[in-house]
């Protein structure tokens, strides 16, 4: 059993919860390697996957996780175009309340929406990403991925590179990594950072070359140049010079170091075309492993929220 009913922020989980999730993820990872990949654990349970923001990756990952546990999974892709967002949320909530479901997994583009939902319904809730706030299951699967490569979290040097300001992944990951004793450095630029960095409590450099030789893990964040509220970054060329991973930098990285990304990677921005093509040959390249681990970790989480009763 976990100590919390809802998982909105990574801070909702205790260290015991996190360890429990990691242990269970190991067992479920083993299930995923079997020929018959399904366990009957959650037969009869109903889960809703409610996505107000399009995401193939996370939605599918939750869906597979639920199905492998034999739960009934209903995908509910709410359209936000025709209605005002707020109204559609209230309406959807009413529908959900009347459906007697066991778990709600939700994603929405507004920060804090999960706090609003949790205050209005009784069903346990997993935050699958809310605006620029939190993405706790991403942080858990990232931690699990790191755990599989290193003996101990303590003292691991992690660099998180890119758009911290607009990233829910950064908010969840940095908090979790710090809690597990890792040494976090933010590699970014002022226009991609909050004015006040106190919350992140991390080192900060503006040039990836300053840390590339020292780090154990390079975590790249997605950089969306097309978003209006991100218009202050000068160009992709500038980004490539200071914040991207290219072949030259890859070669400088320590033996055994990891490259991670929450996906989808925008080739040529965060990671160069060359590196992407070479990735298969490099064992430290974990972007696809993260996806597989995501299913195991989400199975563990859903199981711990629903199955142990």
């Amino acid at each position, binding site marked *: 059993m976990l100590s919390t009913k809802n998982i909105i922020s990574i801070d909702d989980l205790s260290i015991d919860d996190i360890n429990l999730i990691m242990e269970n993820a190991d067992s479920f990872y083993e299930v995923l390697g079997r020929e018959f990949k399904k366990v009957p654990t959650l037969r009869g349970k109903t889960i809703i996957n409610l996505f107000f923001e399009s995401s193939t990756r996370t939605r599918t990952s939750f869906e597979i996780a639920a199905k492998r546990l034999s739960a009934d999974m209903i995908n509910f892709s709410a359209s936000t175009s025709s209605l005002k967002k*707020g109204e559609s949320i209230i309406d959807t909530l009413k529908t959900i309340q009347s459906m007697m479901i066991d778990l709600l997994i939700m994603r929405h583009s507004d920060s804090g929406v999960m706090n609003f939902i949790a205050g209005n319904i009784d069903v346990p809730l997993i935050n699958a990403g809310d605006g620029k706030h939190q993405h706790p299951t991403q942080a858990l699967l990232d931690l699990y991925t790191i755990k599989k490569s290193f003996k101990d979290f303590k003292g691991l040097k992690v660099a998180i590179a890119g758009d911290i300001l607009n990233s829910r992944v950064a908010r969840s990951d940095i908090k979790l990594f710090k809690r597990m004793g890792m040494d976090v450095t933010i590699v970014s630029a002022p226009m991609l950072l*909050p004015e006040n960095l106190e919350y992140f409590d991390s080192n900060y450099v503006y040039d990836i070359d300053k840390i590339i030789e020292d780090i154990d893990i390079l975590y790249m964040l997605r950089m969306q140049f097309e978003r209006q509220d991100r218009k202050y970054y000068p160009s992709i060329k500038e980004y490539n010079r200071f914040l991207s991973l290219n072949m030259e930098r890859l070669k400088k990285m320590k033996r055994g170091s990891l490259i991670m990304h929450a996906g989808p990677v925008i080739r040529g921005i965060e990671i160069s075309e060359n590196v992407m093509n070479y990735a298969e040959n490099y064992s430290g390249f974990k972007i696809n492993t993260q996806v597989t681990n995501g299913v195991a970790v989400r199975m563990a989480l859903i199981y711990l929220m629903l199955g142990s009763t």
Partner: protein
Amino acid sequence: MIGSDNILIKSGTVFESSSGKEIVSDILIQNGIIRAIEKNINVEGISKDLVVLNCQNYFVFPGFVDMHVHLREPGNEEEEDIGSGSRAAVRGGITSIACMPNTNPPVDREYLVNYILSKSRLIDFKIYPVAAMSKNLEGKKMTEIGLLKEAGAIAFSDDGKCIQDSKLMYEIMKYASHFDLPLILHEEDYSFSNYGLAHEGYYSAKLGLDGISPFAEELMISRDIMLAKMAGAKIHITHVSSKGSITLIKRAKEAGIKITCDVTPHHLYFNDSFLESYDTNLKVNPPIRSEEDRKALVSAISEGIIDAIASDHAPHFEAEKNTTFKDAANGTIGLETLFKASYTKLVREEKIKLSKLVALLTTGPAKILNIKAPAIKVGNKADIAIIDLEKNKKIKKEDFCSKSKNSAFIGQNLYSEVVYTINNGRLEFINKSC
């Protein structure tokens, strides 16, 4: 009892306006006029319908003036109207209000000023219309400032918006200075507040809410101080929210610029750590800022830099607040908590003198607006708020009589309760729970 204009206030602690002293006294009101302020007034022979209010444990204040109120009429009467707004005001001990022009349509023509004034007379409540500075609040073309003044506007403002065109702002200042009316300025540089949802600081970073830098306010205050100096205009900065703004205003005052300012009770009471719950009632513009900013506002009150406290009463119907933080409308209602919240924070917690608070709610705003301040003086029409300062109550949504219930103070324990309000010489409100 309600509606009576022959009243004896018995043994209240009176804030006498001429001396500024607190004295335990009776006040006799006949036909709405204050006839005597004395101990143990002998009422033998005075008309039988005299209403006697026993006020041994209560304070007797002049009716308060709220210089920043959104009444939503015309156009959004489902949120508030002039009638419901004035009832909420009276319940908060307020007997005069200035209403902002961002209605639908905005108050940018004479007939709209006339409309508000005629309603005000009809319900016998003092409402002072503030007219728009720019047509349709678009920040593009000046309104008929002279004609609007003649119609009865007492100040000009584009509140809710800020004129970004500096030349237009300068021309408005020069022209308004002919008519000696204050410009009430909502200061916001949009390039710094675009997309913003919360004060830019620790909590916006934590909560993933786009930040609004204090620069948004401070840059425009700096600009307007320069423009006002050149134009010789009288400017009033409303709902000042940041420490930097206070410094700018203080220096401008010292330099002899005709500048005044107000703060809201919510900026004095809350800091941005309260946003952790994503409570949409705390979504206001300018945003609730850091504890450092809040403290600077409180110190500015002690130092005499702040000229008034005003509520920025902004009613919104349920659906506009019962949604995500991003989608929620800006604003909190504030008429019914104007005194309570200010009193609780400033007098009870920060140990600021009660007389100072009363001045910021009466003579302060009256002077800015150049209107007669309600005063407890023989010969004056009675505008009086009688308050139990010891009462302490948790604020509940259902307790508000404003049409909208979006109060930032819901859930807070606040001191004091208005027991009676006498408005325009008549007993208009009796709090039955006191």
